[in-house]
């Protein structure tokens, strides 16, 4: 580098005096806020006036935002303003949708609860219809049922049992506490005959393919 060039640079710099540090801090703050990408110190210096010291301004700014709702953070070799980690939850809006379990799922669950450990084939035999994969998967996912021991019968089928979560949800100490058929009848939950003109459906019961069979059956009983 020649001396002439150096002198030129000096002259140029002295023409534009660097703004006071407080002002530089404001500038860095505004740039970090408005820029979509993290900004490097070099880029900050380029965008600010000659003689600015973005590195120092960043030290001050970082301190200023300590403990605030947003922080000045280093991302690689660049800087950005980011939401304080503990407030991340504000950026999420959880909407919980409560849906009633389908009739197929309730029946499957009931059979598992009353007959556990029970195989899929047994569930199907009791329900009189095949049990869809989705129904069992849903109950497994909800952690209301889990796999029990395999049956020591040909094919060694898996069995299903209810979980502690299930008991907790239904306020039961054990599956044995489930009311028996006699009690169900006493509670009016077992009707011997469907009321005339109605199908033997309790609750609203969402119609899925499996239920169609049932409806078909119920027609047999009413003539």
């Amino acid at each position: 580098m020649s001396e002439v060039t150096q002198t030129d640079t000096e002259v140029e710099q002295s023409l534009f005096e660097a703004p006071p540090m407080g002002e530089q801090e404001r500038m860095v703050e505004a740039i970090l806020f408005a820029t979509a990408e993290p900004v490097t110190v070099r880029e900050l210096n380029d965008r600010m006036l000659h003689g600015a010291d973005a590195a120092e301004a960043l030290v001050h700014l970082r301190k200023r935002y300590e403990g605030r709702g947003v922080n000045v953070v280093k991302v690689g070799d660049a800087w950005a303003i980011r939401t304080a980690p503990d407030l991340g939850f504000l950026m999420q809006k959880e909407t919980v949708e409560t849906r009633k379990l389908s009739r197929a799922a309730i029946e499957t669950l009931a059979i598992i609860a009353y007959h556990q450990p029970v195989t899929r084939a047994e569930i199907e035999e009791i329900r009189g219809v095949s049990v869809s994969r989705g129904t069992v998967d849903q109950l497994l996912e909800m952690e209301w049922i889990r796999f029990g021991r395999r049956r020591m019968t040909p094919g060694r089928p898996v069995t299903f049992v209810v979980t502690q979560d299930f008991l907790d949800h239904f306020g039961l100490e054990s599956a044995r506490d489930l009311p028996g058929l006699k009690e169900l009848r006493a509670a009016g939950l077992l009707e011997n005959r469907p009321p005339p003109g109605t199908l033997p459906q309790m609750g609203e019961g969402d119609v899925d393919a499996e239920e169609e069979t049932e409806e078909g059956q119920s027609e047999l009983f009413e003539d």
Partner: protein
Amino acid sequence: MSEATNDGFDTTVADRLAAEALIVDVDGFEGPLDLLLSLSRTQKVDLRKVSVLQLAKQYLAFVEQAKALRIELAADYLVMAAWLAFLKSRLLLPPDPTEEGPSGEDLAAHLAFQLERLQAMRDVAARLMARDQLGRDFFARGVTQQVERVRKVEYTATLLDLMQGYARIRTRDEFRPFVMDRDAVFTMEQALERMRGLIGFAGTWTDISSYMPDGWDTDPVKWRSATASTFAASLELAKEGKVELRQSDTFAPIELRRRDGR
């Protein structure tokens, strides 16, 4: 152009420039009101003190000039010219008490108001546009974090749902014996079939209870069913004209005999 004589050149250029200026101006104006506003500026006074009479004269002169130069003016310029000519005459002539409608002064005042209002709107529009603007002078956040919507579906069921579900299945099982319970039901068809075979022998009055199926008298449920169906079958046979029925008294036994002559 270069071939034109000096004289001809001068006149044509002057004419042409004048004509072009007017064409450009008319094009540049946004209607007669805008033109009037421009003309009023030549008076170099506050818009509130503008002389509407003078303005009307200026406008009419402008229109005359345009006509002379065969510039086609849009219809609304001509409508305005006609109205200003009318206004001018009203302002110049002493008020005629027999004449109806607003006075020339009223009309002039309203025109002045319209001009002032248009000018005011232009001024504030300029002030508005001179303000600091978002994305030019001040800026919004560069990185935005969208609020993530986490949708969680929770399935619920109550113990009652569970028990009802189980009851539903078990009830279905109980229905099966109920189907077999049909054994305890003696249908009318069964009764008819039985009686059709027997009435051949019923030449004399016989109690219909004697047509009851065998072995149905032990179980009261079966008994009831068989009685009902036998009675119904008797009525049916009577309707068909195959038998006659009689009952001597209320609650007395119902008797049946084959109808002869058939």
